[in-house]
């Protein structure tokens, strides 16, 4: 039963990892940009949530209605102002610039909020649980998992059922020809980054309710996000959820064997999958 419990907890943890990964996957899918600052943007989302809850006295879940649009606007401005200038044939400039951005965000957070670990207070939501045939399941992890499914279903709907999604796919396929269709790729990329950071805001808040955070943890979240994206296969959003779940389960099972093995088990599972299926389990992008 303990193992079943570990499996269940790991699956639910995978929901959080999928939220980390979804924005990363979207950005890479639309503009082939590898965003090294993604983890720090998640942490930024958590801190913005913290400020909203302490200043306005909102419940963290309610803070989403402020933080999500704020991060989306920040994403659009960031893309139009800086990141668009780095995109081109050479893949190095976006890597360097987002790495620099990562350093800037970390230090800005450090200046503003100090290095002390912080946590958002979500009251009863943090500890509430339901029993499920002998297992005790936390409401928060279940909620996080449900949100992850909802986010990915929404992204999937946007991508395959709306004019915006059509524009994303067309621009991703061929930027020049998309311009001929009257699509301004700079604007389209701005919208993609806005959408990605909206998802990142959700990820940051769910992270900040679940665990304590400090300005330095972004790198670790970035790695989890990357691993989930790559396990699932580039460009496949449902695959990203599966990737998150596999990573979450590997970590909880690893921790069950020996608490020190939690992270290592996740990374080893990632490496094994990468060795066996280098394109991930459900690749969409063939290149």
């Amino acid at each position, binding site marked *: 039963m303990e193992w079943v419990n570990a499996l269940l907890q790991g699956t639910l943890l995978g929901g959080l990892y999928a939220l980390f990964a979804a924005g990363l996957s979207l950005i890479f899918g639309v503009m082939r940009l590898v965003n090294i600052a993604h983890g720090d943007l998640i942490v930024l989302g958590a801190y913005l949530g913290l400020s909203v809850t302490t200043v306005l006295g909102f419940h963290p879940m309610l803070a989403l209605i402020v933080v999500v649009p704020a991060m989306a606007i920040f994403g659009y401005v960031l893309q139009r102002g800086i990141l668009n200038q780095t995109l081109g044939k050479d893949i190095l400039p976006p890597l360097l610039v987002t790495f620099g951005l990562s350093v800037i965000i970390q230090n800005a957070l450090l200046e503003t909020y100090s290095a002390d670990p912080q946590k958002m207070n979500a009251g009863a939501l943090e500890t509430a649980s339901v029993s499920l045939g002998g297992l005790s399941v936390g409401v928060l992890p279940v909620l996080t998992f449900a949100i992850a499914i909802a986010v990915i279903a929404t992204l999937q709907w946007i991508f395959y059922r709306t004019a915006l999604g*059509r*524009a994303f796919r067309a621009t991703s396929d*061929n930027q020049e*020809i998309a*311009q001929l269709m009257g699509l*301004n790729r700079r604007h389209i990329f701005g919208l993609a980054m806005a959408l990605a950071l909206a998802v990142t805001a959700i990820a940051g808040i769910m992270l900040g309710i679940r665990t304590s955070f400090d300005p330095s943890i972004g790198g670790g979240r970035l790695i989890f996000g990357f691993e989930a994206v790559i396990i699932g296969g580039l460009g496949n959003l449902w695959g990203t959820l599966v990737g998150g779940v596999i990573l979450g389960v590997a970590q909880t099972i690893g921790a069950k064997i020996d608490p020190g093995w939690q992270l290592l088990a996740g990374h080893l599972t990632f490496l094994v999958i990468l060795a066996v299926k280098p394109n991930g389990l459900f690749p969409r992008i063939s290149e």
Partner: protein
Amino acid sequence: MPDPLLKLEDLDAFYGDFQALYQVELEVAPGEVLAIIGANGAGKTTLMRSISGLTQNQAQMVRYRGDTIGALRADEVAGKGIALVPEGRQLFPSLSVQENLIIGGQIGRKGPWSLKAVYELFPILQERRHQQSTSLSGGQQQMVAIGRALMANPDLILFDEISLGLAPIIIKDIYAALPGIIGEGMSALIVEQDITKALSVSQRFYCLQEGRVSLEGSSATVAREDISRAYFGVE
């Protein structure tokens, strides 16, 4: 000649660092079909890119309805009513046939072309509308590429090497359909390697040679030996 729809004045254009066009002068009248002929590397594709905005030049080098559009981006040029059927078709592989057509029409210009009109022109596309565009035959893909450009209801449509890589029978069908496509007062610029085909559908032609206009004239009356000389540059 009435006021030209499109006028190139002293157009110098570059393909990367390489100057591909030198002082090109060209005019397209409303409703006119123009052929652009020339050997590989003569600058035909750079000419198409310069008109459509994929290559940006100095503003006054390209005039359209009197506006200087030479320095505009491709998406801005598209909004003014110039559509390009690119060389090699270049459909969006992630989009279905129908989505490829819809995205062509998303500029939202009014006119006779709609999904329904394109499907009437190419009924096979309606049958295949939910397929991935890459699963179609070359000829059908070319129909999608033409339909995609028409969906924008352009006043000027540019065809870049539409017969390239297609079977002769397919080329024949597509050229048979062209007059119906270009009717309705639309102007067209047709870049073509096959000189006979190009001259048969156009009223006037321009021949490019090493980035310069080497000959221009009426498609119906031009002498073959003049074209050979202008095309290859041999005396």
